[in-house]
């Protein structure tokens, strides 16, 4: 019965196209990873060869580990990313719920206001942000970064989440109201669990720029104790000397954690993105 509908030629064609694109997608990552394990000469002699007993070298990783406290940098990045995501999701979902659920004066205006931030690069507000952080004593604390990333992530989060919140059954929320649940309980107990996939989508979209950002760590929290991993690895892309072993190793080390975070969220992401289908 399936035979009548699937053309074997098509199947081969589809897999062919996908495999081709997958190769294109992964190739550069592959190049970086294999070369991070090679000695300097081998990187240049045979960039595409896998490291063998001759060319294998951990010198890059050793340099990186020696140069800074990468475990601390990693911890800082982790704290900043996870805390920012937490606040983006919590605050964003709350605001999205208010916009999606309640009819009130200025609802539309509020929605537009919250979306404005998507249109201007936050970088140009740097000086004002920095002044504020200095005034509040938050400079060189991870809080400064968490606040900025939270603000930066909110517009898209509100935008996406309110779309999803509208899909949550009105009857369910009303049933809760009639059963005496407060608006807060309805939000936290009924609605949030149902939009979990959407939360994952927002998390993935926001996680990447936060983890990878170089600018705000540099400006707001450049102290050794608060350095993030991306800022830490920037040390190796220097002005006059470029230690490629170290650069490649640092980049490889920076890829892994995002990859892991992505894997954690990705099941939910797919469900989130596709849940429009089930309603």
């Amino acid at each position: 019965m399936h035979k009548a509908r699937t053309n074997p030629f098509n199947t081969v064609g589809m897999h062919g196209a996908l495999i081709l694109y997958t190769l294109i997608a992964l190739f550069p990552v592959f190049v970086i990873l294999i070369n991070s394990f090679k000695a300097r000469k081998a990187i240049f002699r045979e960039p595409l060869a896998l490291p063998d007993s001759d060319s294998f070298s951990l010198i890059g990783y050793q340099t990186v580990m020696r140069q800074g406290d990468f475990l601390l940098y990693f911890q800082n990045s982790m704290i900043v990313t996870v805390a920012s995501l937490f606040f983006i999701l919590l605050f964003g979902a709350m605001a999205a719920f208010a916009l999606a659920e309640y009819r009130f004066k200025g609802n539309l205006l509020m929605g537009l206001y919250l979306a404005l931030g998507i249109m201007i690069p936050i970088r140009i507000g740097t000086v004002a942000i920095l002044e504020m952080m200095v005034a509040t004593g938050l400079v060189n604390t991870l809080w400064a970064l968490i606040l900025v990333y939270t603000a930066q992530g909110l517009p898209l989060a509100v935008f996406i989440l309110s779309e999803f919140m509208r899909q949550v059954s009105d009857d369910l929320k009303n049933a809760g109201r009639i059963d005496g649940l407060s608006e807060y309980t309805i939000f936290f107990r009924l609605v949030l669990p149902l939009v979990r996939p959407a939360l994952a989508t927002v998390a993935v979209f926001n996680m990447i720029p936060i983890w990878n950002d170089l600018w705000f760590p540099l400006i707001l929290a450049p102290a050794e104790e608060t350095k993030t991993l991306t800022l830490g690895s920037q040390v190796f892309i220097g002005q006059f000397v470029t230690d490629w072993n170290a650069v490649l190793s640092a980049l490889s080390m920076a890829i892994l954690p995002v990859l892991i975070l992505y894997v954690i969220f990705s099941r939910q992401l797919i469900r989130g993105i596709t849940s429009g289908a089930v309603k």
Partner: protein
Amino acid sequence: MSVPRIRWHIIVFLAPATLVYTAVMIFPLFNTLRLALYSEVAQARVFVGLENFRTLFFDPIWSEQFWNALGNNFWFFLIHMLVQNPIGIALAAILSHPRLRFAALYRSAIFIPTILSFVIVGFAWKLILSPIWGIAPSMLDAVGLKFLFAPWLGKEEYALTTLALISVWQFVGIPMMLIYAALLSIPDEILEAGEIDGITGMSAFWKVKLPLILPSIGIISILTFVGNFNAFDLIYVAQGALAGPDFSTDILGTFMYRTFFGFQLQLGNPHMGSAIAGAMFAIILVGVCIYLFGIQTRMRRYQL
């Protein structure tokens, strides 16, 4: 007549997001954009109205750079629209095939570039395309196409297109995921109805699926637009703030950064920088409005 009561919970729900967003984003942004109306004369800030914008648009020194950057920006956007989105749609169409095996695997692999940082992307592609390191030339050589190779990132005529394609490579996962979701949300009954009417394979895609996912394509287009006109990092990482060769890869983002913060011996000029940022904001706002009021409202949405 009942006086409407204050619904405190709405305020509670909105307050945290609004406060953080207003304090850390809107306030600093507008505080900066305000600078566009001032100029610095002898260490003092002087209100000059729209003078900076006049300079930006009409003084040849500035306007040449501005129009160049704007033109490049449109080309950058066009490539994304013509390459990124069709590829994303095509991949999604294949992935959404109901009996495809390993779909999850492909999907994750293709999404991986999207999660990489610009530093990694810029670095990796510069290595691969480098005529010195020789990955791209030797790979072309292997298939007998060596003559096609050129130092793409270094040639005025190719550099911007090359960078746009790298950016496409990085972000193709986003349209793919969104379209994939839209395709999955088309009920099977509709496709089966088509099948019975003899609409299968490619024609099913063109005649049934595509019209139904048009709203998603619209959203992707506007996200691409906003993203592209705010783009900065990839070009900065790959070509530096001067967006070489000879400003051929200069887009509004790099132009703004260079002007606002200064570069090398060029001192930062927050006033002109803010003027450029203001112009960028206006362009994006106009684009978004055209979409919202011109296209989105006219686009037919089908109840699925």
